[in-house]
């Protein structure tokens, strides 16, 4: 692995981004990396845009990913991915992994996944849209599992250098006991083997 691995998670308040951040941080620790994350709480979290940063590697200094420096951007809502272009660049070979879900923004026209994909092309050679919400809702009945499902996708598509077993261990440590199996199912749906 190069110096550090930089992940941005984005979405809308209530999609479970804080938990996903913790899962990734613990998984990095399990693999023996140094890790730092940065998140926001309170006002900025209420139904508005949410973003968090996870960086791991041999030694991590800044808790924030720098402009154009993301290796992987996972967006739990498609329009939010546009905002994250700030962290993306072709030079860093940023991969976008996007939940193909549009949550309406008040007083604004919806941007379609197609339009979004076109705009992202300038920043990334690899944008993957996955109907994560739809799949987990159909198969497991809970939309909030879309994030964990996308982590499974990230492993299966080799979008980050963490092992599936580490992420599963980390999920076990992070989510409440009674939800572990459901989360593991969502993660496994991605067929990463």
């Amino acid at each position, binding site marked *: 692995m190069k110096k550090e691995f930089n992940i941005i998670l984005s979405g809308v*308040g209530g999609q479970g981004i804080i938990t996903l951040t913790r899962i990734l941080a613990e998984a990095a620790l399990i693999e023996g990396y140094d890790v730092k994350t*940065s998140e926001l709480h309170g006002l900025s979290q*209420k*139904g508005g*845009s949410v973003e968090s940063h996870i960086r791991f590697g041999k030694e991590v200094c800044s*808790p924030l990913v720098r402009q*154009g420096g993301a290796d992987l951007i996972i967006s739990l809502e498609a*329009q939010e991915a*546009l905002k994250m272009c*700030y962290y993306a660049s072709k030079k860093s070979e940023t991969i976008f992994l996007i939940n193909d879900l549009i949550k309406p923004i008040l007083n604004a026209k919806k941007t379609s996944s197609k339009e979004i994909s076109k705009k992202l092309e300038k920043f990334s050679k690899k944008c993957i849209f996955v109907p994560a919400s739809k799949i987990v809702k159909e198969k497991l009945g809970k939309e909030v599992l879309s994030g964990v499902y996308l982590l499974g996708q990230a492993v299966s598509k080799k979008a980050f250098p963490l092992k599936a077993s580490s992420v599963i261990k980390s999920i076990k440590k992070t989510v409440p006991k009674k939800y572990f199996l459901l989360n593991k199912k969502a993660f496994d749906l991605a067929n990463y083997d």
Partner: protein
Amino acid sequence: MIKEIISNKTGEKAILLGNEGIVRGAIEAGVQFVSTYPGTPASEIGDTFFKIQNSKSKIKNLYFEFSINEKVAMEAGAGASFSGLRTLVGMKNFGLNVASDFLMPLLYSGVKGGMVIAIADDPNCWSSAQSEENTRGFGSLAHIPIIEPSTPQECKDFTKLAFELSEKFKIPIMVRETTRVALQSGIVNLGKIVNGNRKGKFIKDPHQFSTMPPRVLEMKKELLEKIEKIRKDISEKSPINKVYGKEFSASSKMGIITSSVSFLYVMEALKELNLNIPVLKLGFFNPLPEGKIKSFIKPLKKVLVVEELEPYLEKEIMRLAKDINPKLQIFGKNLLPEVGELRPEYVIKAVSKFKNIKYQIFQPKLPVFSKRFPQFCPGCPYWLIFRAIEKAVDVKKVIFGGEIGCYMLAFCPPFHLQDYLFCMGSSIGVGHGIKKSVSPNNKQKLISFVGDSSFFHSGIPAMINAVHNKSNPLIIVMDNSTTAMTGHQPHPGTDKTGMGEETRKIKIEEIIRACGVEKIKTIDPINQKEFIKTVKTFLNNKNDKVSVIIAKRPCLFINKV
């Protein structure tokens, strides 16, 4: 996670937030009394103690409370410290403003048991939207020693150190975080937990604890001497003020001085640019290790000061350079913004300019996107209240006073129902002033919104003032039975203490009656018709009297009360 924060496995690694690091540090220091009022980005300090003390793994001999406001939290903490216990008081920057009336003389009297005050600033106003406060100013204002951690590990270590220093010098110590420290998570090496077992006893000593002239001027002199002693004996020698990288190279003659999270951005910049410039990281903001700084800048030609917000540190460096190196070129706010938080790329660019090298991040023009404003949660009772207001009154004519809590979101679309918005309690105080000032010919009506926790925090004096001075705003108390915005902490209107004990609910309606309000009605806003009718009647109230509606319906995220 709670399990790890109270884990006894010394030497184990855990991922903690900065705020959790402070909690762990306090536990490793044997803290016995913790008080707080919730506020982002400091809330997790109180929340974590609340969870611990309401779990099976409750810590013995440790008292925790959510106080009614920050001033009372600090007073309570001081009382515990005067009685010999180690005490932690946590709050956000604005909370310290509320508590500052008490803080100033507390520095004069000093403390007995170690007292640490953890404060979180919020550069960029992510969740503290009313001003971009830089609490480091309290170093000069109150003469309080301030130390600034940059990582969760340092949050833990510095908190422990603060307890020791506080007790040694009998002075409260501030541990100052910013959002990117408080809500940064990272790996922390767990140390040994110390169960505090002191038996509190207040020993009368009016010489120390009563601030009255002429003694008070002596106290001030003692305080200034204490600070100088801490500077000389601790700050100058402390390893938390440390030089990173090679000390000084005759060829470059450059150095960087920094602190807090900015230090991490500086190290990131040096890594990114592959540079080796000596960095003086200051753990102490007050008192500054002036000798150490002087010897760092003495051989330099150029120094870059990297700090967030106002250039407090840069000004100190200018002052110190005058004696020791008057030709020193000092860079800082000429390369970095004074408004908003720093980000790694800002510091990388500043360092490259400082070093006269080219650095550019190539990026196409960023796409335009629509702003997603924060909103009330789906099903939040506040939707009902503001919908009813829209139906009851001409929103273009009525003045709406807002303040801090979830109801501040009525400022955002779709409502836009906040014509002024300041600190807690102010919707009533300002509303009263407006009502007293607008000419009767203008017939301007006014509604002040105040949340239940805010009402307890600082709304009550403003309400009494309005009644006593014959003002006539309509006040709507938005009672959702919790402190919702900051994470659903209990308040005096709920029936549980911070220790999880049953307690008497303080009834808001009874308080309001006792304030002398005669026109008062409690309504569940689900009864829209009644709510709309009452707003109309109360607002058209012809006499000069305060009227109050308590809009009572619990937040969706708490068990029905």
